[in-house]
């Protein structure tokens, strides 16, 4: 793309040619002070630009094709289970009176859904990127510093204390609004439900789980008593130390669902990883057949016109399915190629007219 023409070969003698006899008033005769530093003066010319564009264009086309094909191989299954329509299975759960409600979404796969399959939940019109919402957490609490359990930071208001003025741990809007629908997936084989094991590990960032968030140290051997004097967030069905009683490594602030939720989404329509399907018979994927998804419907979204969905997807080296990148590469790549051709034509034409002049 550039042609170097290194001029003014600055030999050391050139650079330092200071004459000792010179008066002190005389300016230093160095390459720098005389603005004569040896310099590379790139020249962009047709001979570099046209092949350059061609090469970049072809490379981009190649990447684009690879990306596009990869993206096409990724299987995605999206299901909205908000229950807005009357005939949808979760419609009955949308009425506020229904406190604990379960609904069942069924679907069938015609081919093998190659594993590992990732199970996401998605929310739309949900603004995790509100500024006030985003700052509404206490990182000191979340690193297990019990001093801050008693007096949450101001930014947590109005999610800092309950109506009896007990401090909430973890405080703040983000924690308080943690997504609490839960799912169970069954494969229906000959009318019987076979539970698909869902793996809740490795869904959050490694650093979040291992370094950034810390549980408070157990008091008198009891993890729960570290939370003494505090109350659970108002919207939570159970306290932080009860999030996963089966696995102490997935409990409290280190609960991976909690960690996933605490990493705020960038846009109002987002998805977050819920589970991975990597175990047992399903390690290679979900075989073709009928499936049933049991939804424990707790999370209200209709009040702000939001939607909830579940997404099954597998991933490739580029992540989840995303046609944009492949298309962008194809477009830019072909643009470069076209431009190099146009430039070649223009150049050839002018070259000939140049020859005529000559």
């Amino acid at each position, binding site marked *: 793309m550039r042609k170097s023409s290194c001029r003014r070969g600055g030999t050391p003698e050139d650079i330092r040619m200071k004459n000792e006899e010179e008066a002190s008033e*005389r300016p230093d005769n160095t390459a720098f002070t005389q603005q004569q530093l040896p310099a590379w003066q790139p020249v962009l010319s047709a001979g570099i630009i046209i092949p350059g564009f061609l090469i*970049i264009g072809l490379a981009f086309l190649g990447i684009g094709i690879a990306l596009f094909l990869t993206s096409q191989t990724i299987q995605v299954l999206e299901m909205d289970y908000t229950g807005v329509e009357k005939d949808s299975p979760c419609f009955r759960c949308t009425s506020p009176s229904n406190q604990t409600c379960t609904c069942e979404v069924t679907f069938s796969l015609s081919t093998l859904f190659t594993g590992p399959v990732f199970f*996401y939940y998605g929310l739309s019109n949900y603004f995790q990127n509100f500024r006030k919402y985003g700052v*509404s957490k206490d990182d000191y609490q979340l690193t297990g510093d019990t001093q801050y359990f008693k007096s949450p930071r101001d930014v947590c208001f109005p999610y800092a204390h309950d109506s009896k003025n007990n401090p909430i741990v973890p405080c703040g809007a983000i924690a308080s609004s943690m997504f609490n629908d839960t799912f169970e997936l069954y494969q229906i084989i000959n009318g019987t439900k076979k539970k698909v094991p869902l793996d809740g590990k490795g869904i959050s960032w490694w650093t979040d789980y291992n*370094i950034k968030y810390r549980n408070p140290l157990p008091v008198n051997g009891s993890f729960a008593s570290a939370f003494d004097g505090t109350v659970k967030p108002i919207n939570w069905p159970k306290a932080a130390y009860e999030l996963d009683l089966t696995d102490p490594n997935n409990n409290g602030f280190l609960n991976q669902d909690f960690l996933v939720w605490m990493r705020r989404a960038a846009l*109002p329509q987002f*998805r977050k990883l819920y589970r991975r399907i990597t175990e047992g018979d399903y390690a290679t994927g979900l075989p073709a057949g009928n499936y049933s998804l049991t939804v424990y419907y707790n999370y209200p979204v209709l009040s702000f016109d939001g939607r909830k969905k579940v997404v099954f997807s597998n991933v490739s080296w*580029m992540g*989840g399915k995303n046609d944009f990148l492949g298309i962008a590469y194809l477009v830019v790549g072909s643009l470069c190629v076209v431009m190099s051709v146009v430039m070649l034509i223009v150049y050839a034409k002018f070259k000939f007219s*140049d020859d005529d002049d000559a």
Partner: protein
Amino acid sequence: MLRRRLNRLCGGDENRVDSRTIYVGHRPCPDTEAFIPSKFCDNRIVSSKYTVWNFLPKNLFEQFRRIANFYFLIIFLVQVIVDTPTSPVTSGLPLFFVITVTAIKQGYEDCLRHKADNEVNKYLVTVLEDDRSVKKESEKIKVGDVVEVVEDETFPCDLILLESSREDGTCFVTTASLDGESNHKTHYTVQDTEKDLQALTATIECEQPQPDLYKFVGRMHIYKAEQEPAVRSLGPENLLLKGATLKNTKKIYGVAVYTGMETKMALNYQGKSQKRSAVEKSINAFLLVYLCILISKAVVCTTLKYVWQSKEGQDEPWYNQKTQKEKDTNMYLKMFTDFLSFMVLFNFIIPVSMYVTVEMQKFLGSFFITWDKDFFDSEIEEGALVNTSDLNEELGQVEYVFTDKTGTLTQNNMEFIECCIDGFQYKHRDTQSEVDGFTMTDGVMNKLHQKAGQEKEELFLRALCLCHTVQVKEPGSKEALTDQVDGIDGILPQLEEERGFIASSPDEIALVKGAMKYGFTFLGLESKSMKIKNRENNIEEYKLLHVLNFDPVRRRMSVIVQTKSGETLLFCKGADSSIFPRVKPEEVDRIRMHVERNATEGYRTLCVAFKQLSAEEYAMADKGLSDARLALQDREEKLIAVYNQVETGMSLIGATAVEDRLQEEAAETMEALQGAGMKVWVLTGDKMETAKSTCYACRLFQRGTELLELTVRTLEDERLKRQEKLYELLQEYHRKAVQDAPPVKAGVTRSWSANQDYGFIIDGATLSLLMNPPLEADASQYKSLFLQICQNCTAVLCCRMAPLQKAQIVKMVKNSKGSPITLSIGDGANDVSMILEAHVGIGIKGKEGRQAVRNSDYAIPKLKHLKKLLLAHGHLYYVRIAHLVQYFFYKNLCFILPQFLYQFFCGCSQQPLYDAAYLTMYNICFTSMPILAYSLLEQHIDIEILLDNAALYREIANNAMLRWRPFLYWTVLGIFQGLLFFFGVRFLFSNPALQDNGQVFGNWSYGTIVFTVLVFTVTLKLALDTRHWTWINHFVIWGSLAFYVFFSFFWGGIIWPFLKQQRLYFVFANMLSSVSAWLVIIILILLSLLPEILLVVLRKPRGPHSRQKKPSQSNVGGNQSSQSSARPLLMRTFSDESNPVI
């Protein structure tokens, strides 16, 4: 009387009184009023601005008076008070940094000033007090104190010299620290003062302090017992200025007249008025645009926020409830604070660092001028001097050059060429013999076929020997004498091999030396008698009675001498125009021919006249002169009136011709300036013919140039009055030069495309007629006609100009349509006014003292340096700073635009897209160094090519890179890239699962990807623009990218204990682990730079191509070369490359 006393009681309101009265030694006078110790300021010099106590408030106040700083302070305060998205640190830290650095710099400078002040103020001086000498600190000197100063000491205040240790009542002084003139000047004691200072009872009445170093009028009343008080006049020759140093005199006594801040030195200390460059004005205009963008962004977001919130469920979803306080807040107050929050969020669009960078660029950049060894003149052992760095880029924008002739275009190194006595020509043969040159032997005069009578010859030569103010410098003598009365002009001693002469003007030396060649040698002036050695080697003595000084208005000077035989003679020499009306008309004709011929040959001509004064005539003149010299007010006017009265009815005896050689490369320089599209105006006090021939010699006028003359001579018309004729001529010239000329496209090669070149000549008298016509209404019409004509002329010559008229012309052009950038260049005191008036003032370190240099913005040793200063330095500085400014606005636009767009996706909740560290560091660290290096080192065209092709200067004429079009281009580019950054990442994030382990990215990853693309794009954009890659550029560009990556790892790699949130923890590293993020970063960078690359390809090449031009072509600078350089790069062929150009 009572009132005066009252005034004094009320704090000494001296301003209303025109003069002050000083009691020498505080001794009451027997006469007049009672002794009133009047209050004058003490002798403390305060050049410092601050004291320890008021430094902080005063300095802060001064700093925040700057609009920009104030703006940032407001933003900072808003951040502190209102709940805003970014912490006050983000804008407080840079502001604090800027303010602190400035404060430290100013504090340090003030500290130095304090030190210097103290050194002066605490210096011990000897004061005579009641019969004894007392040592006192300098600051305690009061007006009226008699002060003793010994050799090599500086005067502690302005003193009137009362007594000198030298016999003749003189002392020598050097004023090097005042005006840079290092020669010795003679000062005189007041005549007839008592030798015994203790007994002296006197008052001094003198004018109120005024800054002019060379003007002083006063009067001294000396009271003696039983006698009428004697009155003596005081002039600048009696006044010893504070700051000057006593030389060659053991000690002197003087009485303090002006002290402390009222001394002439202190009054001169006040800085010059600040000149602002066109670039600065552009910056301010752009700033306004960006302020509008900022405010409209904030308004749009605030409006949208409230529109959006009005929708059901959006204002306060259950997951993001408001606090009670927020709910209670007034709606309008909320809107206002929201507006402020948005302002804060977007305020980075106007960066603090731009001001710092621009200042740094200017300050550091100006060193390249001082460092340039091409500006070093081995004769005076000095290089260029930069007095202000604010105007560097203005050097690249000059449209009009106003140049002085003498000393600037010419060397001011005079050589006596020939003379004409009584109509006969005498020519001294030089090395080359001419047709009309005649042989001669040393010391013998050489004549034409006929020669004037012996008597006339000798009279003429005596006149040359007597009528001057030259002093002889004895070789080897330590006591260097200087000229007796230094006129308004400064002086530098001129050394001569055989016999040193010192004079205020080199013409005089040339004349004295000329007379020497013909056998008359001036031996010197000793106690009022001038000695001449005549041809017969006899010494003649003349008593010098009066010197009627030279001044530029009278344009002549005279001496009155008395011969041994008692005759009183007046010799007068001066410009022909001022001599001819004062001599008998019949004598004029014989000499006029010679004078005019000499003038057309480019020589400076002077006419010599003489007159014999009768005793009565002399008595009258003597009285008139003495009276006028004693006058306190309007002394100058009165003197001139007497001069004019004496210098009448003389008889013309001859004329002289002195050659003033052209400066080195004057013609080449002028040609280059014209080739660069600048209009050169020569403003001179000289006569038209001389000036015209200089113009021809400098190739300002060419053979084909048609001259349009508007002088007193062309105005003479039988039929019409002057005024009417002037109008008629203006009309005619206007028709010729403006209307008939082919229309020229703005900005393109005017002088080349026009078929006919015009030169315009105007003289001082006509100019004043033009500027101040009898009818007020005509003035503007005349001026516009005049300006239009001048704009279409390649060169304009204004001759017979008074210094003020020079400034007037500059001012007129400066304020004309389009307000062109003007540059004045001169070397003498008479050029100071025009140097100060023009946008850029250039002083030449010439022979006429240092006044021009002191008042200039840049000083260069020689005229020839102007070419490089403008064509190379000016051009480069302009390109650099223009690019700097545009780039700064651009990079902040595409920095903030994604942040603005993000508001549409976060419910306009002022969520910042980037982390606070990135917001703060973007302008300070990540993108500041490359542009600074670029703006110091860029040479888009090589310096040699710039110097060879003057026409390249035109490419940047009229502020070409900072007009609205390029600004729009940069803005559109910024918007395009901003949109691309944001939406590119937005589409990528439609599925935030970007890692191959299925995990999702959050909002900080989003911002970090955008920011990474941003930093790389703006840096690479600059890399694309860089045409001159030195190792510094490489280091800084790749270095800051590496620094960004390193910093991001570091910032995200540690749990920072002092941070309340760790939101960037491992965000950057995680981003790099995603292939998709890499790919999107690469494609977005390429896509944003694609239009730039295309433009670079299609744009016409500058540097590399013009290098191919043959020198002959480029010198002509004609259409050919401009055509070929206009070929777009694409049309250059592969074969172009196969002939590599070195």
